């Protein structure tokens, strides 16, 4: 049966099911295939804090959203066009986000009384008319999967587990994607269990053929490849990119990478990724806690490695005292804070931007440290690399802020050639002549003098040090001078970072100023509003301390400064302090990326209403 193929620019699909239903895997496979067919894309996985909550419950629902397009896109999308709901709970949780008229694919086999009950449905939404605003495609996914796998001699349990591949296959058909990449992946993954591989592939194909055969679908869709810049692409999550960024920095600096960490959501994947790169000489050290991780990183830095320690909010809190030591010792160190919902344990699997003030000011004493932040998943590579560059060049701990959304979200990354990455020159001091541990170069930077170097034996520590000699000093004027000197060293980095660029006109009515993981949402909102004729510009900050040296001038060129953040206004505070400029705040702290509709409305309001 041949069907019409409709061409779309842009699709947002959300796969949702039980934690045990394999939705993350399904989403990832769809993403990879979509990348291969050349769409631009952006993803947003969302999973519960529970490992595997009891089947069928609302809090056990796991989802994966994917936005793909034949055009440049920047966000995983606010509202899905398509919802794949593997059970009633998934439908219940996600229905409210679906676009009006959107497509719902449900696995009818899971809509039994027990599951409806667990999801809190009094009547079945499939029959009570509550879905009448949507296009509902009812598919007995489980039954069809079982049918497809009949006779292979597999247990019922194993066969049922393959049902996500059936759904995946069906979606592949619907959006005209090839099944081969996933088939290859299955072969690789289940190489040692060939029946499992075969079963999954059979389910996949059964789903695909079901689409082709059944009358449920009248048309198939197609999303043409995007006009991406030519080159080699790779779909990458923020955590993968961060890991690659620090490996690349170490390789280019010619020193070993040392990653000390303690597992914590959503930062653990950086550790997982790096622990696989042993043949790059990467040392990963899973410490007993975050304090020990920070301590080991300080020690490794002292011994001449590129030391990095990654964590999330609660862990970053524990590291503060040790980072303060790193600041006194003036040793290079990268601290990655993958921000999540706070305070306390908060919403550990959700995203937030609420550690900006904390990493800027969260140490006792005057303890300045540079702070930079990644804008997109792929940008984590560039900014991790940049954090390392600054740390090594300025002999200082540097904070890199990413967040739960960037960490787990993915996008296509135009992979750079290793040889084109900027150099990270490292020169260890070896000459004993006139050596002083706290002598300084033109950037106020002291030498990196490694234990093991003959003739440079010296002692450093957390007590205030005499300028130049580095000896302990209780001298009041020396302390005053050193406090100022440390502050100036960090402030001086401003001359070594890019000027702030502005998207859109360089002056005007309103400038949207954002930072970190909200880049995509903000930029696409700005874009849409600009297309509608609103004269607004956008400055996205990747350098938070120090700010780019032209930022003050940039702000002055606009009548209104609009600052959207997933916190209560932390960048707002910094801008107000630094530039004494009023700002209009937009703060939604929902553990989720900003929603462009809300954001756009707020900008329009700031402009004085719709035009």
């Amino acid at each position, binding site marked *: 049966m041949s069907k019409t193929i409709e061409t779309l620019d842009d699709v947002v699909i959300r796969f949702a099911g039980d934690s045990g239903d394999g939705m993350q895997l399904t989403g990832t496979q769809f993403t990879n295939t979509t990348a291969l067919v050349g769409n631009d894309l952006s993803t947003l996985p969302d999973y519960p804090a529970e490992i595997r909550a009891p089947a069928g419950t609302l809090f056990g629902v796991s989802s994966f959203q994917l936005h793909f397009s034949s055009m440049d896109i920047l966000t995983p999308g606010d509202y899905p066009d398509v919802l794949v709901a593997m059970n009633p709970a998934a439908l219940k949780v996600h229905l409210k986000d679906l676009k009006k008229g959107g497509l719902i694919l449900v696995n009818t086999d899971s809509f039994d009384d027990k599951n409806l009950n667990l999801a809190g449905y009094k009547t079945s939404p499939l029959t009570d008319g509550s879905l009448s605003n949507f296009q509902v495609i009812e598919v007995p996914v489980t039954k069809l999967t079982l049918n497809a796998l009949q006779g292979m001699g597999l247990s019922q349990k194993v066969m049922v587990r393959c049902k996500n591949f059936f759904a995946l296959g069906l979606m592949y058909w619907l959006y005209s994607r090839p099944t081969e990449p996933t088939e290859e992946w299955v072969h690789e993954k289940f190489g040692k269990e060939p029946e499992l591989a075969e079963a999954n592939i059979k389910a996949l194909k059964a789903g695909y053929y079901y689409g082709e055969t059944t009358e449920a679908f009248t048309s198939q869709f197609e999303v043409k490849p995007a006009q991406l810049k030519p080159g080699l692409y790779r779909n990458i999550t923020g955590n*993968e990119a961060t890991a690659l960024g620090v490996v690349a920095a170490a390789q*280019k600096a010619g020193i070993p990478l040392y990653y000390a960490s303690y597992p914590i959501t959503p930062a653990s994947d950086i550790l997982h990724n790096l622990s696989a790169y042993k043949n790059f000489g990467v040392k990963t*050290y899973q410490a007993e806690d975050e304090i020990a991780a920070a301590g080991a990183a300080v*020690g490794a830095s002292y011994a001449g490695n590129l030391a990095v320690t990654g964590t999330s909010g609660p862990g970053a809190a524990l590291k503060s005292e040790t980072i303060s030591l790193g600041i006194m010792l003036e040793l290079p160190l990268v601290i990655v804070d993958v921000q999540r919902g706070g305070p306390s344990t908060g919403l550990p699997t959700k995203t937030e931007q609420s550690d900006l003030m904390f990493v800027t000011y969260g140490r006792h004493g005057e303890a300045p440290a540079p702070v930079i932040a990644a804008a997109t998943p792929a940008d984590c590579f560039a900014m991790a690399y940049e954090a390392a560059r600054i740390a090594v060049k300025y002999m200082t701990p540097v904070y890199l802020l990413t967040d739960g959304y960037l960490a787990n979200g993915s996008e296509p990354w135009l992979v750079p050639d290793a040889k084109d990455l900027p150099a990270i020159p490292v020169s260890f001091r070896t000459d004993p002549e006139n050596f002083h541990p706290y002598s300084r170069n033109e950037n106020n930077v002291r030498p990196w003098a490694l*234990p093991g170097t003959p003739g440079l034996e*010296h*002692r450093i*520590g957390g007590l205030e040090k005499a300028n130049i000699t580095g*000896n302990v000093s209780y001298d009041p004027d020396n302390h005053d001078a050193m406090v100022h000197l440390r502050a100036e060293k960090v402030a001086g980095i401003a001359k070594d970072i890019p000027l702030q660029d502005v998207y859109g006109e360089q002056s005007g009515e309103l400038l949207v100023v954002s930072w970190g993981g909200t880049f995509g949402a903000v930029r696409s909102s700005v874009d849409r509003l600009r297309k509608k004729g609103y004269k607004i510009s956008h400055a996205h900050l990747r350098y938070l301390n120090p700010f780019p040296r032209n930022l003050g001038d940039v702000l002055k060129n606009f009548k209104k400064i609009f600052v959207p953040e997933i916190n209560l206004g932390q960048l707002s505070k910094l801008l107000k302090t630094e530039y004494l400029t009023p700002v209009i705040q937009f703060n939604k702290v929902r553990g989720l990326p900003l929603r462009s509709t809300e954001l756009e409305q707020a900008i329009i309001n700031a402009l004085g209403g719709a035009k």
Partner: protein
Amino acid sequence: MAATNGNGEVQTKKYTAKDFASDQDVRWCPGCGDYSILAQVQRILPELDVPKEKHVFISGIGCSSRFPYYMNAYGVHGIHGRAPAIASGVKTANPDLTVWVATGDGDALSIGGNHIIHSLRRNIGLKILMFNNRIYGLTKGQYSPTSELGKKTKSTPFGTIDYPFNPVQLALGAEGTFVARSLDRDPKHLQQVLLRATKHNGTAFVEIYQNCNVFNDGAFFVFTEKETKPDNILYLEQGKPLVFGKENDKGIRLNGFTPEVVSLKDGKWSVSDILVYDETSFDLAVLLATFSDRAGFPTPIGVFYQVERKSYEKMMTEQIESVTKKRGAGDLDKLLKSGNTWVVSAN
């Protein structure tokens, strides 16, 4: 002895203790036991095959933690309790270094307790010297986790209500592979124990009884003063019977599973009945560790336990080597371009 430096070149110069003294004035209270510990470390270092730039002393905070400043070597005066963490980073980043930890009973066992037990468990090649003066010296006299129950201190005017740790027992419980005890006021013994520690691969934990003459004067006099020492100190020596007393007239005998102090004078028992020490026996080590808490028993000093177990840093290096051998040395460009890639061509 000709020392070689790290590059295998022979170093003709033989060090003396003085070579390990830094140019900084030593700032402990006059009479503090720390002076002797410093002197003994400086004295044994020339006997090692290690050039002075390969020694790194890491400390926390406390009187004892000022130690690195006084050594002409590399050093980091860290933060309170975290020396083992910092030192673990140094040692694993560069296993070629000889990494020492100078710490106190508060630094190591109060705030730093977790790092200490984890270093021991991991068996990272650190030489941990724990100066036990049973008090917080630097903060002027609060009780520590090794202070006796009931002790009156600045923070416990009516006496402590905390039962103390037995550091040797704790270190053994935490999988220590080298656990020893010595005394500030027994320089020779201390030197021997320190030398043994330097020979150990993996974490060496040495508790050193140290007199704080300002806030806890005389805490160990019974173990260090001529009069009382012989009857209260038991020297542990591999393969030797556990004999002690002014005239070597007492010994430790095992009665089944229970140790007892017996006299060798009254003819009932002779040296051949006495327990012969075996520092490779964990069970024996634990048994002996409890002596310092048992009324009527002498306090053992020396090496309680020593066992060979591959060090953490060695396994780390080996793992990197073996993966590199299998996969080839990492190629950054290939790594960046690995995974799920596709090419967008100019059109």
